[in-house]
């Protein structure tokens, strides 16, 4: 099975993080349902033309997050759990919120100011189309 994963050399993040993110996306959008077998580590490494150890790392971390399950000798499958897609988005949201707080602190904003900025953004994006012009 071809993974369809495409890595970017211009992306500053390590390759294992890129692989993890793209696998999470495939699961989150439902392309890879629960129980679906993942390509073997060596297969994925050959496909992407990267080292085996990098793919191993990505699978290991995804297993720790509970996104995939690995059985010795049988390979890895997408983990069970109907809410997996939601959980992946949940983790994504948590990461972005942390980033918001970190950037806010960098700008010297108080917690109150960060909250009000978030509220403003919510209002702006939630506003109906016609009000935006």
């Amino acid at each position: 099975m071809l993974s369809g994963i495409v890595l970017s050399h211009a992306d500053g993040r390590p390759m294992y993080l890129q692989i993890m993110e793209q696998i999470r996306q495939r699961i989150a959008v439902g392309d890879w349902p629960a129980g679906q077998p993942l390509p073997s580590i060596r297969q994925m490494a050959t496909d992407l033309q990267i080292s085996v150890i990098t793919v191993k790392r990505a699978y290991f971390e995804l297993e720790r997050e509970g996104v995939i399950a690995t059985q010795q000798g049988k390979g890895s499958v997408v983990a069970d759990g109907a809410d997996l897609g939601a959980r992946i988005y949940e983790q994504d949201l948590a990461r972005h919120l942390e980033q918001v707080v970190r950037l806010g602190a960098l700008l010297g904003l108080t917690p109150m100011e960060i909250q009000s900025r978030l509220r403003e953004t919510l209002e702006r994006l939630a506003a109906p189309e016609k009000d935006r012009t």
Partner: protein
Amino acid sequence: MSDLALRLDGVNKRYRFFELHDIHLELPLGRIMGFIGPNGAGKSTTIRILMGLVHQEGGEVFVLGHRMPDQQAAAKWDVGFASEDMRLYDSATLDWHMRFIRSIFSTWDHAYAQVLLKRFDLKPEQRIKGLSHGQRVKAALLLVLARRPRLLVLDEPTTGLDPVARHEVLRELTDVMGDERRSVLFSSHNTQDVEQISDQITFIDRGHIIDSRDKETFMDRWRRIRVELPSGVQLPALSGVIDIKQTGRLAVATTNTYDGVLPRAYEAAGVRVQAVEHMTLEEIFVQNVQCSREAGQA
């Protein structure tokens, strides 16, 4: 049966202007090792010792379980070696070379050789003297790869290749790794190639191995930490930080033993941590060589 593709233990070799010091190196079966070093660091000498082309003065060398250089004839059935200075016969065609190798090595895979001809865009009826540098490199690699050796030892396999040819070569090397009993050692100046396809990374400089470990650990432990110093706060000296560049209230600290503790230690000292960044292998390489040279001079 040893589960190491190759092992060097305490290997020494002295020349008039260059010396290899106490080289220890191990490559487990089924792995790709990238061997990086500046010009004249000792990469090719190490590889020649591995291949029995140069004899070490001290230390032990094993290749696929065979002691080198005494058992090199036995080792070489299973080892494919290609280097930049490998000569093919100028007046003979590539096809002649292929038939020659095939007559010696029973492992020659004719179908794979045909696939490689297509992938490398080579014509078997062409004479070697008419080939460009890149085509010669690819021809030499084809002759080695089509034997399907258990260990590939490649000295600068991508040097002087255009980007398309480089990708073709990297693709073949990663294809080899589909078989977990096969191993590759390749030297390169191109850190991007090494970063992409290696499982193990070894740095060599001035005849010393300065670091050798698995790539993920390697890349994980080197980090750049960008910090901002509120007025009145001094950047504390923390262990594990090997380089600091500070201009005004901004500083960048580099560590090669990152484990998540440093940013918290900085924060505890009142320093604001802006970012913890990964580094490319090229950045790590340059910094590593500089640090090891400074330590050598101290």
